[in-house]
């Protein structure tokens, strides 16, 4: 297989599976098709032009024949239909003037066809295409394309000139018709017509007085419906709606939720700083030579910190708000929430130190924390589960809202997964690998995804101020997610020595995932239906929308990656890394941010600065694109190099620019997290500057009470 062939193939694959669109350069075997395609396009374009020219010519000929008719035979009635007010006025005025003067002047300009004739007619010939192998040569194809470009441009130019000339000629004909009409109008003597035209003009000139509905009273807003009144000056960024007034939330719960988010934000900044550093090491491997900071040790520090520190704590924090709210009751125990927070933070902190010191569990991804560390995390989850279940048990609603299905199940499953992953009985030999595939993918799908979906099922309808589109779709997605997702773990080990049937089940399960993903996406987008206009007014909805789009694309990309053929190409490459960022970042992070921006202003009563929320959103989104698209493209080509048996080191050299792009995208993402941390800080403490109005009114209130 030569490189051109590869490129065509790669471009096709990228076209289908990634978010980018690459031009397809057809070569070799597809040469004939390519030529055919171009020729068809040209023939099509030219015939359209010819048709237009023919139509213009036909009009001219008709007009010409008509102009031969005698004046009295002409039918001017059509010009009297739908006259507008101005025209009537001109006509009537003319009649008045006409009675005074009787001068008729006629001028008629005739333009010749010579213009067209003078135009150089030089039909370019289509390059004659000879048969045979010559056409399959790149040089020939390039030459043909290069030659056809000016030729085709010439043809189009010519067509435009012809059309222009024809149109000009047509206009001169029309002008002569207009002259006749003018003369006719002048000669017309009809009193009754003038009267009826006068009446018609009055009718046309009628206008509303613009106060039919309000009458003459001054405007007032007695119900206080109008808000958001600001300076008349032009805003630097679009104004977004403020969060609604804070509902009555227990101050203790507020404190707990905010501390969860505070810790999560710390782990986000820490974890992604490490990730950023690790990404830079691909470009500059000798940046440091400290054992605690070496690539192999820091990589799991990054992944585990953002998994268990950032995403998990942020989700749990939001969960502590959502679960009691949709159960319409108070949280069972604030203390349990604090214990859980402390345990999980301790686990991530201890785990980070252990990994950097070189103490890990044996190399399974996301399972790098040794069991005493992960046990702390597990106990934290168990306490949360008890807390949530007891809260749910004393709910004042009859039914269990779908959010609680997802959130509480996610915690149950996460505990099961951790137990399966850490109990040593079934971990001998390949057992470890089978469990690893199960564990790492269930961690993603049954913990992060399920929990986040629960959050979305609460916050999305709340932010759109309308119910979720379909409760049933949510339930369908819930059960099918459990059924299919549980099966797909081993698709990370396709072609390895784990049982073939298990690999096949994983692939089938991956295809089955289409059902919950489409059900979920449909449900969310249909909830958006009719409310799309709310997106520009809101600083949370763009995060939701992005998360939902990535939920669809990222998840289906996972399905595409699971097939045996795509495994040949993409397995072991950085494509997987790009995919995991599209999902864990594009879905989970964006949705969790949406939830945080939705809930924190309600808890603290302070809005984040809109400029920096925008900066957070766009840097994160653009950074993610810069990170993933080059990485997917480069990895695809790297996979092809491996399939061709190229020397391994060549594929390392080849990846260098794509790793650089990854570092650039990663830097933007990292920067966006600093903005997020700043926004969160602002939502906690406000601007810190005394508000003159607030202070003045507070003083007034004090004086009122004193008096």
């Amino acid at each position, binding site marked *: 297989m030569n490189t051109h*062939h590869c490129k065509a193939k790669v471009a096709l694959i990228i076209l289908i599976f990634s978010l980018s669109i690459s031009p397809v350069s057809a070569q070799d075997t597809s040469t004939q098709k390519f030529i055919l395609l171009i020729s068809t396009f040209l023939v099509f374009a030219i015939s359209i032009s010819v048709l237009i020219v023919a139509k213009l010519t036909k009009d001219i000929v008709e007009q010409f024949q008509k102009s031969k008719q005698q004046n009295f035979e002409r039918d001017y009635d059509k010009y009297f239909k739908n006259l507008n007010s101005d025209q009537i006025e001109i006509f009537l005025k003319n009649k008045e003037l006409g009675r005074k003067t009787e001068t008729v002047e006629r001028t008629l300009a005739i333009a010749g066809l010579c213009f067209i004739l003078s135009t150089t007619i030089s039909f370019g010939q289509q390059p004659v295409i000879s048969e045979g192998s010559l056409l399959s040569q790149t040089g020939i194809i390039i030459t043909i394309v290069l030659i056809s470009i000016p030729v085709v441009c010439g043809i189009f130019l010519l067509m435009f000139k012809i059309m222009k000339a024809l149109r000009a000629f047509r206009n001169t004909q029309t002008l002569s018709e207009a002259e006749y009409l003018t003369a006719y109008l002048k000669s017309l003597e009809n009193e009754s017509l003038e009267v009826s035209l006068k009446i018609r003009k009055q009718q046309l000139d009628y206008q509303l007085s613009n106060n039919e509905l309000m009458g003459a009273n001054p405007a007032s807003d007695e119900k206080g419906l109008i808000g958001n009144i600001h300076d008349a000056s032009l805003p630097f960024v679009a104004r977004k709606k403020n969060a609604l007034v804070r509902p009555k939330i227990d101050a203790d719960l507020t404190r707990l939720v905010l501390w969860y988010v505070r810790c999560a934000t710390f782990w986000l900044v820490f974890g992604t700083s490490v990730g950023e550093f690790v990404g830079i090491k691909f470009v500059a491997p000798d940046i440091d030579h400290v054992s605690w900071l070496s690539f192999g040790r820091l990589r799991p520090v990054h992944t585990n910190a953002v998994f268990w520190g950032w995403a998990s704590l942020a989700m749990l924090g939001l969960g502590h708000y959502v679960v009691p709210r949709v159960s319409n009751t108070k949280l069972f125990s604030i203390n349990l929430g604090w214990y859980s927070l402390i345990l999980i933070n301790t686990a991530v902190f201890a785990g980070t130190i252990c990994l950097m010191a070189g103490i890990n569990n044996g190399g399974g991804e996301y399972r790098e924390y040794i069991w005493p560390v992960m046990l702390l995390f597990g106990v934290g989850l168990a306490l949360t589960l008890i807390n949530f279940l007891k809260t749910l048990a004393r709910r004042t609603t009859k039914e269990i809202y779908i959010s609680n299905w997802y959130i509480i199940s996610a915690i149950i499953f996460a505990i099961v997964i951790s137990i399966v992953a850490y109990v040593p009985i079934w971990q001998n030999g390949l057992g470890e690998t089978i469990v690893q595939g199960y564990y790492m993918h269930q961690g993603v799908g049954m913990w992060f995804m399920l929990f986040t979906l629960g959050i979305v099922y609460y916050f999305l309808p709340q932010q759109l101020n309308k119910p979720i589109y379909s409760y049933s779709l949510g339930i369908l997605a819930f059960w099918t997610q459990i059924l299919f997702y549980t099966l797909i773990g081993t698709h990370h080990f396709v072609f390895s020595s784990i049982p073939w049937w298990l690999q096949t089940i994983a692939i089938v399960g991956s295809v089955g995932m289409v059902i919950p993903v489409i059900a979920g996406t449909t449900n969310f987008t249909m909830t958006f239906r009719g409310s799309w206009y709310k997106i520009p007014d809101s600083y949370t909805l763009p995060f939701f929308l992005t998360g939902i789009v990535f939920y669809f694309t990222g998840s289906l990309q996972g399905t595409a990656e699971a097939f045996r053929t795509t495994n040949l190409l993409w397995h072991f490459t950085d494509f997987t890394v790009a995919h995991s960022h599209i999902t864990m970042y594009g879905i989970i992070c964006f949705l969790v941010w949406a939830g945080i921006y939705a809930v924190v202003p309600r808890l603290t009563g302070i809005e984040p600065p809109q400029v920096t929320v925008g900066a957070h959103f766009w840097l994160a989104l653009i950074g993610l694109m810069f990170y993933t698209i080059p990485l997917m493209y480069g990895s695809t080509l790297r996979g092809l190099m491996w399939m061709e048996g190229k020397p391994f080191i060549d594929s390392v050299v080849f990846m260098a620019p794509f790793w650089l792009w990854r570092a650039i995208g990663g830097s933007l993402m990292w920067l966006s997290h600093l903005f997020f941390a700043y926004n969160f800080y602002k939502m906690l403490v406000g601007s810190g500057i005394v508000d003159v109005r607030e202070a003045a009114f507070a003083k007034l209130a004090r004086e009122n009470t004193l008096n």
Partner: protein
Amino acid sequence: MEFFDSHTKLFSAAFLLFLVLTLFVAIMPAINNDRNNAALPGEEMLSEEAVKGKALFIANGCVACHTQQVRNVEMDKMWGKRPSLAADYASNRRIDLWRNTATLMGTERTGPDLTTVGSRQPSKEWNLVHLFNPRIVVKESIMPAYPWLFEFKNEAANEDIVVSIPEKYSAGQGVLVAKREALQLVAYLQSLKQTDVPQGQAIAFLYKKQQNITDESVTVSSVADGDALYATHCQACHQANGEGLKGAFPALKGRPIVADDNPELMLNIIMNGYDARPEFGVMPAVGKNSDLKPEEVAAIMNHERGSWGNNARKVTPEEVQKLLDRIKNLPNQ
């Protein structure tokens, strides 16, 4: 529905469904696997040093970039003679009280697969230099350096293993000596080999490249590419410029053995390795280990004989085949 309005019923149902599926796709297959697989009879146990080396391999997270699995697809053939089998991993047990089993299969090949690195790159000297800083021997490498496995000494003691590195990297700090950990890690890497399956090759690779004879481009590429083969098998030591590394790996540029009109000795060294000169590292039996075909060996030889100013006559695959038959009957050098 009544059923879904009871939290005990709802979550018990979800839990049970998940548990049953878990049993079916994770726990049962894992237990079954342990019950039905055992190590191959010829498998060598890791030496004590290698076990410690494996612990270092784990501690430093090498698995993040290096897989240890030859998949049963044609493209993985470059990493092993046969696809990996469940039996290859069967002897892996829990490391200790704190740490889980480490099959170290890996999911990411940022660096090469290591299943057979013990036979592909057995040279201790190369491995030590490479660990100290990979860019000394492979300048395009992005692998981390592991200088904390080594120390600089003013004077090496008798039992010390001295690692010779270019001046640029030692920068007058003295002699570089491998610490015990470096030797353990190398011992582990050297132990990574594929055990022969009893009764010969039984497992086939899937997705073989289709040979289309009518297509000209394929027939052209089926002629072995000396450049690429040299990069894969020789370049790590002898370098792309053929100059080797002083004090570690000999130059091929202008070397009489390479330029010799009679290619027999050169062929023998490529096939069976070489350890006659104490000042250089041991050359592994590259040809045998990688199971190179006569046309591939001829391509490598022609690349070496015709590059960097070398100008020896070309050898043909037929000539190599003839010589190979003769070498087979000779004792190893």
